[in-house]
């Protein structure tokens, strides 16, 4: 057991820290709280381009496709340092965390050349088309049809819950290419230009009032057969191939963001008056803060063990599901405790003069509700743990 960073990792971290100190835009907080969604996204796209040009994007991606060919640990350090510096997130989230790695794993050389560098530079934004109205937790029930017609596939169907669908230039689409197939067989993963005729994007308004997600409709959309990623009919394996990776590495940033929010809450606990004295002196609140700190720290340690396992064994296991269950449920508990500690002011949203921290606590409380649903519900994650980790019979 050795939790110290190596000299090389320390050097990398220090260089990155220095760069972030000099380059994190000072007006980010203003953009974060005041911009409309599309303005903010444009800001983030410009920021990602800057990160890419400085050589920090796609650290673990191969050099010949614009990455740095660095070890996984540098990617983890990058995620942590970005969160620690409160830097803006990178715009092309899905391209960077899921679709790029999938293209690296399954793509042909021309596909890698065509797509990867543009993902890193944010010149092309990606969304993912997996879920459908009747394929949510039962993801293998995908019905969107891909029918071969010459050297093109013709796509018809509807996708839903597409994050960044409104901003995307490309979509990584899971389709049914064999109409006689069921479940995991007969699926094909195909890369679709969102500017193709017949693609229609409709924003979905979620309970926070924002529209992060969209519905996407495909009417006779023609896609070159050369855009199939992996083998025709092997779409399921292509689609889930990098999910575990994402669950294992994305958590590093989530943990530090939670820790920063916790530290802020601790500050506020000294100035928030409850029952005539600072909340920080209320024994019940102290218990709850102690509990939150414990859980946030345990999350960090679970995360480190998961990364160690990838470093040792090369591939992440389905243990990523344990991390996802842990942080999503923890975030809900944390937001509840934060709003409880802060009292009535915590319920005020952006724009109200009495709102605390521009209403971020009210927003955080509502947004956290989605965590245990998006990217695989807690129930599905527990099925994965039960079946793939513990070896219990498949329940569905």
């Amino acid at each position, binding site marked *: 057991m050795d*939790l110290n960073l190596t000299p090389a990792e320390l050097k990398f971290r220090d260089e990155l820290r220095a760069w972030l100190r000099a380059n994190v835009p000072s007006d980010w907080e203003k953009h974060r709280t005041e911009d409309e969604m599309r303005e903010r996204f444009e800001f983030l796209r410009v920021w990602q381009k800057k990160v890419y040009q400085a050589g920090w994007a796609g650290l673990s991606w191969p050099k010949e496709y614009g990455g740095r060919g660095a070890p996984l640990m540098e990617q983890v350090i990058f995620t942590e340092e970005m969160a620690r510096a409160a830097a803006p997130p990178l715009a092309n989230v899905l391209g960077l965390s899921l679709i790029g790695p999938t293209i690296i794993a399954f793509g042909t050389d021309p596909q890698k050349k065509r797509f990867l560098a543009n993902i890193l530079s944010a010149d092309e934004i990606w969304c993912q088309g997996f879920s459908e109205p009747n394929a949510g937790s039962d993801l293998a029930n995908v019905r969107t049809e891909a029918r071969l017609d010459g050297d093109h596939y013709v796509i018809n169907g509807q996708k839903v819950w597409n994050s960044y669908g409104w901003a995307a230039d490309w979509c990584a689409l899971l389709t049914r290419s064999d109409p006689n197939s069921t479940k995991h067989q007969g699926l094909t993963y195909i890369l679709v230009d969102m500017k193709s005729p017949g693609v229609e994007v409709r924003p979905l308004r979620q309970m926070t009032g924002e529209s992060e997600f969209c519905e996407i409709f495909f009417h006779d959309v023609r896609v070159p057969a050369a855009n199939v990623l992996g083998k025709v009919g092997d779409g399921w394996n292509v689609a889930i191939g990098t999910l575990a990776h994402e669950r294992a590495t994305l958590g590093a940033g989530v943990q530090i963001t939670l820790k920063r929010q916790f530290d802020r809450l601790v500050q506020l606990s*000294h100035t928030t008056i409850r029952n005539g004295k600072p909340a920080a002196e209320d024994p019940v609140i102290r218990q709850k803060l102690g509990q939150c700190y414990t859980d946030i720290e345990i999350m960090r340690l679970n995360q480190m063990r998961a990364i160690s396992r990838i470093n040792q064994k090369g591939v992440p296991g389905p243990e990523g599901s344990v991390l996802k269950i842990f942080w999503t449920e923890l975030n809900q508990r944390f937001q509840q405790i934060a709003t409880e500690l802060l009292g009535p002011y915590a319920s005020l949203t952006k724009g109200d003069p009495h709102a605390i921290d521009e209403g971020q606590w009210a927003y955080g409380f509502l947004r956290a509700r989605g965590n245990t649903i998006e990217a695989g519900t807690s129930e599905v994650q*527990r*099925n994965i*743990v039960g079946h793939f980790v513990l070896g219990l019979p498949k329940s569905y």
Partner: protein
Amino acid sequence: MQFELTETQQTLKNTVLKFLAAECPMAEVRRLMETDTAFDPALWRKIAEQGWTGMLIPESYGGFGMGMVDMASALEEIGRALMPGPFFSTVLMAGPLIERAGNENQKQKYLGAIARGEAKVTVAFLEDPPAWSPDGVQMTARAAGGGYLLDGKKLFVPDAAVADFLVVIARLEGQLALFMVGSNSKGLSISPMSSMDLTRKVYEVALDGVKIAPEDVLATGAAAAAALGPARAIATAGLVAEMTGGMQRLLEITVEYAKTRKQFGRPIGQFQAVQHQCADMLLYTESSRSGAYYAAYALQEAIPEAPLAVSVAKAYSSDAYRETGNRAIQVHGGMGFTWENDAHLYYRRAKVSEQMFGDAAFHREQIAKMVVDAHPARPEEKAAGRG
């Protein structure tokens, strides 16, 4: 960064696992738990021959000077096997305390004997009312005839009936003081307390004018307090490793049962209501393990935040072990409620371990002291106030 056991530690852990499977299987645990002291001299001798009693003791005192992570990996298996007897009290509680509080002569005398398996030693801390904070220690030593006299009662003293020595924590002129007391001292009487945990026996120790020679004073005042904190941290981290092992065993027997027990024509583990409870048990067990390993590592490497790491680990596993036990018994159904099923033996251990060295609420308050009180408000906000 490498946050898993090394190959050597994994080998050590496997050796302990195999040894206990052969020498201390559940049948033997059940036999011992029905005895008054749960102590088997033959098993103790074999443990000492294996070198376990000397693992933490520095080489200069006849031990192996191994690190706390090595110790934790062995303790996981010891907790998994529910090994009864005075190992924990001697090696995790008394040894580290004597090492930090004793003078050279005392260390040579007691640590060497512990390492060789010749001395079993326990620590007498709690009184009535029981409190894990040092403020709870009220027993007071009186100076008399060049030495001291001790009077009063200690409660929940583990393995006192089989211990050769007790480290008694008392007060001298208001300050903490640590005394070595031979178990055959005049005026010392030891009577069993009927604990829920059948595999860890605890005792009431009454001291009635017990004489302490000056050379049996381990430490007083600031030195005693300075030794007690870190020694308690080691025992607490050790306990969390043991608890993790117990959780691992509960998880294994429960998953096995869920795979084989059939209802409605299929294994109950196929029902999500059951499967999800098993998934939660894995989450608790792995999270507890993360906390246990980090606490052990932080102590071993003397990282400044070690006390925080220990409180985090104990706050987490105090609840997690009990919750794992709840789910284990629930999934076992009626079988889980029977005496013959092992789940209740772990559940009993979970409940008592929850309290030992402070429960979750105790450690959450410690964390609040270290984290909340240490980070005051931003000055400008303090001036402005709110609410």
